[in-house]
C-alpha cells in the first residue's frame, strides 16, 4: 500500500456503459463515473446487486465497451493509453501481460480440465515462458503461496473444493506479476471460514506484491479489511467515495448511511 509514484495507474472520467434490455429500451449499467487508482492502492467498489459495480469493473477492464467517458491506463513502459482507443488485440495483450482478473466463479477464470500446475503454467507460457522445468517450479511455488498442497499439482480444479479453486484462480492470476488486478466478489459464494482464510491470503499477497487492485464487493467488511479507499455505487452512479474507514464510520450520503446501518453486528 505504499507508492512513491506520483502518477495514477488508472484514470477513469465520466465513464459509463449503457445497454438495450430485452424490450429494446436503453438501460444504464453505470454512468458518469470518475475514479483514480494509484500504484499500490486497493480501491473497493461497493453497492448492492444491481448497483452497477460489476458493470463498472468490466467497463474499466475493457471487457465491456464504454458508452461514454474515458479510462486511461499507464502501462509498464510508462505510456498512458486510452483504453477505448485500443483494438481487441492490444486489450488482450494487456489482460495477458499487465492485468489480472479474479472472477467470482473460479470456473470462469480457470481451465477446469487442466491440472492445477497447468493452470498456472499456461498463464506463464502466455507471456513467453518455454522451459518446462522452470514453469513447473514456478507453478509449484505459486501453489504453495496460495496454500494448495504440493501433491495436488497434477489434479484438475474439478477435484478441488470451492475455496481451493478460488485460491488456484488467484495463483493463476498473479503468476505473471500483474500491475493491476481486477477482482469481482472474490470471496462471495464461499463458506464463512473459507472466506476469512481467502481474505487473509489476498490481503497478504496484495501487501507483499504491492499490487494495485480494483475490487468489487457487496460486503462492507471485505472492503474494510482489504481496501484503502472505497467507492459506493447505487443505480449505476457513485454516491460517495473516500477513505474506507471514513466512508464506513462517517458516511454522508443517505444511501451509504442505510448500507452501513444495515450491517448485522455479531
Amino acid at each position, binding site marked *: 500500500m505504499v507508492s512513491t509514484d506520483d502518477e495514477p495507474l488508472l484514470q477513469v472520467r465520466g465513464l459509463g456503459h449503457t445497454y438495450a434490455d430485452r424490450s429494446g429500451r436503453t438501460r444504464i449499467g453505470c454512468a458518469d463515473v470518475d475514479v483514480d487508482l494509484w500504484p499500490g492502492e486497493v480501491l473497493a467498489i461497493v453497492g448492492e446487486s444491481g448497483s452497477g459495480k460489476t458493470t463498472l469493473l468490466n467497463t474499466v477492464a475493457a471487457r465491456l465497451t464504454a458508452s461514454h467517458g474515458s479510462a486511461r491506463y499507464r502501462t509498464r513502459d510508462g505510456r498512458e493509453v486510452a483504453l477505448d482507443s485500443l483494438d481487441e488485440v492490444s486489450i488482450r495483450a494487456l489482460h495477458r501481460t499487465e492485468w489480472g482478473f479474479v472472477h467470482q466463479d473460479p470456473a470462469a477464470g480457470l481451465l477446469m480440465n487442466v491440472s492445477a500446475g497447468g493452470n498456472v503454467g499456461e498463464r506463464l507460457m502466455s507471456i513467453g515462458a518455454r522451459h518446462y522445468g522452470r514453469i513447473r517450479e514456478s507453478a509449484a511455488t505459486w501453489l504453495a503461496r496460495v496454500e494448495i498442497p504440493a501433491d495436488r499439482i497434477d489434479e484438475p480444479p474439478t477435484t478441488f473444493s470451492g475455496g481451493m479453486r478460488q485460491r488456484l484462480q488467484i495463483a493463476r492470476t498473479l503468476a505473471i506479476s500483474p500491475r493491476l488486478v481486477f477482482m469481482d466478489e472474490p470471496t462471495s459464494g464461499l463458506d464463512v471460514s473459507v472466506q*476469512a*482464510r481467502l*481474505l487473509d491470503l489476498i490481503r497478504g499477497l496484495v501487501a507483499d506484491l504491492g499490487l494495485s487492485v480494483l475490487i468489487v464487493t457487496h460486503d462492507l467488511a471485505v472492503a*474494510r479489511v482489504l481496501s484503502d479507499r472505497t467507492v459506493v455505487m447505487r443505480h449505476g452512479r457513485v454516491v460517495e467515495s*473516500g477513505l474506507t*474507514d*471514513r466512508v*464506513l*464510520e462517517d458516511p454522508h450520503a443517505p444511501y451509504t448511511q442505510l448500507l*452501513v446501518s444495515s450491517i448485522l453486528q455479531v
Partner: protein
Amino acid sequence: MTTTRLTDPSPLDPTTALPVLEALDLAKTFTMHLQGGVRLPVLSGVRFTLYPGECAVLDGPSGIGKSTILKMIHGTYGIDSGALLLRGPDGAVTDLARADDRTMLRLRRTTLGYVSQFLRCVPRVPTLDVVAEPLLSARVPPEDARRRAGHLLERLRVPTGLWMLPPATFSGGEKQRVNIARGFVSDHPVLLLDEPTASLDAANRAEVVDLIEDQKAAGAAILAIFHDPRVRAEVADRLIDVGVFVPSGAVRSGRVPSGAGRSGPVPSGVENEESR
C-alpha cells in the same frame, strides 16, 4: 484560548520547537438521513495547539466528543469547518480538514499514529505481524520490523509463546497490549491514544506510561484520552477541556445513532472490533 499559529515558537522551548498540530475552530455535525435528516452538532470551535515532546490529555465526561476529536485528526471522521494544521517531519504543513485521501494515507504511514480502543485484526495473521504491520507497510525490512515488534511485545509482557498465534482468541487485556504495541511500533511524530490503558493491570499500565514517556523524550507529540486518573496524573503535561467545544443544545450521549459514525461492519467469520 490563544490563536497560536504554526509559525509561533513553542512555550516549551521558545528557541526551536514549532507546534506540530494546531486546530483552528474545528466543527463537526452528524446529519442523520435515516432519521429524517436531523442534524446533530457534536463539536464546534475546537481550538488547541500541540507541541513536540508533550502529552496533552483531552478532558471531559464520556460522550462529550473526545474520541470524535481524535477521529477527526486521523481522518476517520470528516471535518465540517475550520482548519487543522499538521507539520510533517519534512516541515511541510498540511491542512487535514482539506487533505485528499492519498495525503491522509501517506500521513498515516509517516506522521499520524493512532491507537484505537479496540484491536482490529484479520483472522490468521500472527500477533508479531499484527504489531509489525505498520512498519511493513512503510517498507521497513521485515526482520527489522519483527525485531521491533518483538521488543514492544516483550515490554508489554505478551508471552513469546503467543507471538506466532493470531490475537483473535486472546483475552481483552492481551489484545489491548497487542494493540498498544502496534500503535507504538512506528515512532510517528504525532500519536493519538484513545484510552490505551482501559483494561490493563497495574504492571502493564506502568509500562504504557513508560512507553509514553519514551515517545515524549524522543520528541513525539501525544494527544490522548485517559479515564484512569493515575495514568493521567503521570503522563499529562496539560489538559484540554473538551466541554468548552460542545455547542449549546448538543446531544451529549456520544452515541450517535447508527448510520452515521459509530457503526462499523464486522466481517462475517472475521474476528474484528468488539464494539466502538
